């Protein structure tokens, strides 16, 4: 009896309180019109297991945010990378729009008018690294907001260098070739050149940049430019001399990074993602390796390949004010740095990059980041990239000019 009574009394009090709150407008606003103030945040999962799942990381930010803004709720959904694109597409097709996504970004959503501009949902859009602005822009307005980035440097094994009697890291292609030959004489792989299908487009671009080339010039494909042919002719000689692993066109990045971590490769181009692989292998101490700017034909490059993952804000649910509050909160330096520490990635805002610039491990990656070069972002790139991945490796065994020429033909006929 007593139980029931207290229950009823409690219920009545709760009801009355709720009514009062609703009348005074304290119980969460209903001004957005959609009847719900829960933001739907959809993120890609960068984790390698339950311990460092991205849902856990984002929930941490959300808990802090909800404490500071009790009138806004945020629901985190994390999706494995392999399904991310497809699931976001399904949500959009079924008109169950998310409010915020973090992961791959598609310019066609901006084209369809589904997104808020960066300046609509961020108080300081200029703090986003300017190097990545073009990639997220449509018709001159930025929609894709970089959340995390990554760049490439040259990793070298100091132990192998010392054994081979090399004192300094290479600066020019000539240095690199001489060093690789000395390392090869010691029985290890001189330079690890992953031109297999997994990520040949990345390795290739680094060498093209080294000769002053690239995939595009002024938005037009120039894959068979003289500079690019120079780069692959150099690589062909390097391979012929045996200064790389055998048959680079069939070797993938993942395998070669493992071999570098095992101390079997003298030099290799890598990203921060190589660091945890080295640490996990447990063969090389932190002092046994170092990373320096990418080697160019005549000297170290002040640029490199940069990639980023983006935040996009959907306008279908009309939550502009709430999204802005949340994104301003999430883009604080401390969360940027925490995210990048957790997943060995790099920040995407100028202030966070400045804060990390003096870090001994991440510093070298950051110096080139503001001037980094991105992959092309036009609609034909997906097809061109596949062709590059599958065929560019044959340029170091066959005729570089012919292979690059065929790629150029694919690129120009596709667009």
């Amino acid at each position, binding site marked *: 009896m007593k139980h029931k009574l207290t229950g009823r009394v409690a219920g009545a009090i709760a009801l009355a309180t709720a009514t009062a709150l609703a009348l005074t407008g304290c119980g969460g606003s209903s001004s957005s019109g959609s009847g719900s103030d829960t933001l739907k945040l959809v993120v890609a999962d960068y984790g390698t297991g339950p311990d460092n799942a991205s849902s856990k990381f984002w929930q941490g930010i959300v808990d802090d945010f909800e404490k500071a803004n009790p009138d806004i709720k945020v629901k985190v959904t994390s999706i494995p990378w392999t399904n991310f694109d497809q699931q976001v597409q399904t949500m959009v097709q079924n008109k169950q729009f998310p409010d915020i996504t973090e992961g791959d970004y*598609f310019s066609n959503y901006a084209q369809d008018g589904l997104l808020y501009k960066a300046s609509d949902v961020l108080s300081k859009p200029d703090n986003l690294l300017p190097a990545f602005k073009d990639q997220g822009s449509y018709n001159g307005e930025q929609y894709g907001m970089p959340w995390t980035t990554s760049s490439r440097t040259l990793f070298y094994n100091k132990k192998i260098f010392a054994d081979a009697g090399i004192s300094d890291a290479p600066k020019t292609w000539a240095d690199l070739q001489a060093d690789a030959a000395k390392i090869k004489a010691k029985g290890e792989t001189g330079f690890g050149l992953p031109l*297999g299908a997994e990520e040949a487009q990345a390795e290739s671009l680094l060498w093209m940049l080294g000769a002053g080339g690239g995939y595009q010039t002024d938005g037009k494909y120039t894959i068979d430019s003289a500079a690019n042919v120079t780069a692959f002719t150099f690589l062909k000689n390097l391979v012929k001399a045996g200064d790389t692993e055998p*048959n680079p066109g069939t070797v993938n990045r993942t395998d070669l990074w493992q071999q570098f971590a095992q101390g079997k490769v003298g030099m290799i181009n890598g990203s921060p993602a190589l660091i945890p692989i080295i640490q996990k292998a447990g063969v090389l101490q932190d002092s046994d390796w170092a990373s320096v700017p990418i080697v160019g034909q005549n000297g170290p490059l002040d640029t490199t390949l940069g990639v980023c993952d983006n935040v996009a804000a959907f306008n279908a649910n009309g939550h502009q004010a709430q999204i802005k509050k949340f994104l301003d909160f999430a883009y604080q330096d401390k969360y940027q740095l925490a995210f990048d520490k957790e997943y060995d990635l790099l920040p995407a805002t100028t202030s966070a990059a400045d804060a990390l610039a003096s870090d001994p491990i991440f510093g070298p990656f950051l110096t080139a980041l503001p001037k980094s070069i991105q992959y092309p972002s036009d609609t034909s790139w997906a097809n061109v*990239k*596949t062709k590059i991945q*599958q*065929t560019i*490796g*044959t340029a170091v065994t066959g005729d570089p000019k012919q292979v690059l020429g065929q790629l150029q033909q694919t690129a120009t006929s596709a667009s």
Partner: protein
Amino acid sequence: MASRTSPLRSIGRAATPLLWIGPAIALIAVVVLWPVVVMIQSSFQRIGGEGYVVGYNGLDNFRTLFHEPYLSGVLLRTLVWTVGVVVVTMLISLALAQLFNQRFPGRRVARWALIIPWACSVMMTALIFRWALDRSAGVINVFLHDLGLVKLGSNHADWLGNPHWAMFWMMLVAVFVSLPFSTYAILSGLQGIPGDVYEAASLDGATSWRSYRHVTLPLLRPAILVATLINIINVFNSFPIIWEMTKGGPGYQTSTTTTYMVAIKQGNVGESASLSVINFALVIVIVIVYLATTKWKEQVDA
């Protein structure tokens, strides 16, 4: 009286077989025919990088495909791959079947052992061979190294990195996994040959080689025919061996039409579908030509 009930009854009688073959027809329609329709439809569609169907674009996919600089090489390689693997498989199978038809101690175990490559997933077999051919630690290379034939970690030891050697090893694996089926098909054919024909042959003074050529082989023709035909289709469409061992690379230099089709799908779904249509037509043509030249009807009916 009888005429009033008979139409219904005759319909019922005519429909009874449907009851039995209906599920099979439905299964074939859904699992075999419908995908063929979708495949042909996709080959005329423009499909965006993210898998969206943009619309019809006539024969553009076929045009793009025929302009691929790698296509002729891929087609030629498919021919070498199919003919090579099938011929070698059939020759070895004929010999193996002959052996397994003899009485010898341990025959039962030997026959069982032959089933293993068949029972294992082809992908697994291909993976094992890929590892066994690893340039620095693969068991085949270690063995060859101990014999003094290759140097571990050398260019030569990187068999799968060299397109010609890669084709050789992959064809070897394809023969290995095709052997059990062909051998058993021929073995069952051998067991169907009555002993008295050999008796008659030996009475006529035929040597064993002559009686094999003039008695065994002709009587085996139906079994050889069926085994060859099924092998041709299987080997032509073979995907897991090449995909696991080289992914058709570098630069499609170890691709057959089947793996090339999957490789270009990543960039252009429509173009891939058009190659799929061509593959499908090729298989049908090969089968018709083969059946016509071997006059299969006389063989099987006889």
